[in-house]
């Protein structure tokens, strides 16, 4: 059969209705193409330009396969369809090569059409739609689904009637129930667990009435009867009418964390009482010995007891520091801000350190900005910061050295600077300065007294006060520490304990 007349016939049909074709081709946003029996383009609508960059003429005479991404040109499927082996309409999704060399994801609907003259299927009408946006949305959704499916947190979706529609695989590990066992059930028991009515009321009030996310800690029972604690956030997802279209709950099992926390609190209690009792007994009996309450002591006896006493005081200090660290780490320290003048606070610390300052003949230089306003900070906590930094400066500076304290106000923050002319910190240890129990290699031998916890505590206090702390040092020359506190002050925080001074 001679191909030319058929092609011509179709082209004539097209040419006989140029206005119609032009109308459709020019206005239809998707691409319209017609392929002959060899799959060459014999017609291409102007959309080829807007979608792929080609002028329609540039496509004519070319096989459609030239524009397929090589990975999509699956020999069996694609060419079979295009060979009209299977009669009827078919759809394909593939990447179409653009003029600029890039590819666009497209979806094409393909209609084999009969030659109007011969009455047999020869041509293919292909309607190609650019689905780049839809594809990238689909890819995103796939990624999200994968994230949810593989998450170790337990993720549940319920519809507006509170019926579970989806539960991710982590459900089994956390609740003991397989997803199919909870899908279709009311989500209330899952999300409010064994909490009381007040809790349930507040949860559904926040979610369903206020339509805001709800965060809470929930105790529940696993399928095997064991209890677990979840930290949960449930968010209502609203439709365009602002009605709740569904709820998404993401929960983390914190049973272990709660247990560790409880153990920490118990330990604090233990240390507090059990360790301190014998330390107190030693302190008081030595006090009585030194006061002569049970007879006079020889000079040597006195010296020995004074040494024991000093060791005892060091242990008391260590227990205090450990307890403070433990409390800070378990978040139990309360922050009680009151308007405080930092200069006055520093003065009380200097008074406390007077004996040591005189003993080491340290030259103290104090310069405090005259226009320092009172700021809302917890004086017990910040006093601890000054005490640690100043006593360190004095301790690690040789006799006759200098320690400076400057407090300045830059309009936004109050910056405190404490400098000394002491042993300094080796550069190789800079990264360890705020670590627990860290003591400088160069000073631990010279000055045996020190817990190594002071700076750890100072950093924790400053950071929980929204401030910053930094330092610089040179071995043999001295060290300077700076810390900032916002003029706006610090928010109050409820807690159970305060710091031991």
């Amino acid at each position, binding site marked *: 059969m001679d191909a030319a007349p058929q092609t011509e016939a179709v082209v004539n049909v097209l040419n006989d209705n140029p206005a119609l074709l032009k109308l459709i081709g020019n206005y239809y946003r998707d691409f319209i193409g017609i392929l002959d029996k060899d799959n060459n383009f014999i017609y291409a609508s102007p959309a080829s330009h807007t979608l792929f960059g080609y002028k329609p003429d540039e496509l004519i005479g070319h096989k459609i396969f030239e524009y397929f991404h090589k990975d999509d040109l699956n020999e069996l499927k694609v060419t079979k369809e295009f060979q009209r082996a299977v009669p009827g309409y078919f759809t394909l999704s593939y990447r179409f090569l653009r003029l600029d060399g890039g590819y666009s994801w497209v979806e094409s609907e393909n209609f084999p059409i009969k030659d109007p003259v011969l009455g047999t299927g020869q041509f293919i009408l292909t309607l190609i739609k650019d689905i780049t946006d839809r594809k990238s949305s689909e890819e995103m959704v796939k990624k999200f689904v994968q994230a949810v499916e593989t998450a170790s947190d337990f993720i549940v979706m319920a519809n507006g009637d509170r019926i579970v529609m989806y539960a991710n695989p982590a459900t089994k590990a956390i609740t003991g129930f397989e997803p199919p066992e909870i899908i279709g059930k009311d989500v209330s028991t899952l999300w409010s667990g064994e909490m009381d009515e007040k809790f349930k009321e507040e949860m559904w009030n926040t979610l369903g009435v206020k339509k805001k996310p709800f965060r809470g800690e929930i105790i529940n029972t696993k399928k095997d009867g064991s209890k677990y604690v979840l930290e949960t956030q449930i968010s209502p997802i609203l439709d365009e009418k602002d009605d709740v279209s569904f709820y998404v709950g993401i929960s983390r099992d914190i049973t272990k964390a709660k247990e560790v926390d409880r153990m920490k609190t118990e330990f604090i*209690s233990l240390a*507090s*009482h059990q360790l*301190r*009792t014998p*330390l*107190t*007994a030693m*302190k*008081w*009996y030595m*006090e*009585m010995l030194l*006061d002569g*309450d049970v007879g006079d002591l020889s000079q040597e006896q006195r010296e020995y007891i004074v040494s024991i006493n000093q060791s005892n005081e060091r242990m*008391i200090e260590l*227990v*205090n520091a450990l*307890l403070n660290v433990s409390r800070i780490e378990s978040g139990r320290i*309360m922050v009680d801000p009151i308007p405080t003048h930092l200069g006055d606070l520093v003065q009380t610390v200097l008074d406390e350190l007077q004996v040591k300052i005189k003993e080491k003949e340290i030259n103290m230089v104090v310069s405090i900005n005259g226009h320092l306003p009172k700021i809302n900070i917890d004086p017990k906590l910040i006093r601890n910061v000054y005490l640690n930094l100043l006593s360190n400066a004095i301790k690690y500076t040789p006799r006759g050295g200098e320690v400076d304290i400057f407090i300045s106000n830059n309009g936004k923050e109050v910056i405190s600077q404490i400098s000394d002319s002491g042993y300094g910190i080796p550069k190789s240890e800079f990264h360890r300065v705020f670590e627990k129990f860290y003591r400088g290699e160069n000073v631990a031998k010279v000055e045996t007294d020190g817990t190594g916890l002071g700076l750890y505590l100072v950093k924790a206090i400053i950071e929980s006060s929204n401030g910053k702390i930094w330092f610089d040092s040179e071995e043999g020359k001295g060290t300077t520490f700076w810390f900032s506190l916002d003029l706006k002050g610090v928010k109050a925080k409820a*807690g*159970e*304990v*305060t710091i*031991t*001074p």
Partner: protein
Amino acid sequence: MTDDKKPLIMIVEDEIMLLNAICIKLNKRGYDTVSCTSGRQALDYLKSLPKLPNGIWLDYQLRDLNGLEVMAAIKESEYWNSVPVFVVSNSASQEKMLNMLALGAKKYFLKAEHKLDEIIDGISTYLNNGI
């Protein structure tokens, strides 16, 4: 033995070693003392003593009742609640301290932080000057 002229302090402390030291020091400072090693014993003594103590030195962590329960019992009694209570404990919990002060304790000392003399100074200042 009690001397009517000397002020009497009732000491409630379950650690015998500490109790002894406290007694010795208080006696040296001119106080008479009565010792109890449990909360219940303290309440019994309060009921049966010929004269009320001038002050009570109370530890928080006792073997039977805790300091709060003893304080609450003292506060409830019209006869006892005029006796000033000084809490000397090894627990620095702010919450505990505030609770005790709220129930009427006059002062709160952390044992390991103070020499005996310092604590007794605090008690004497209160008993002599009301502060």
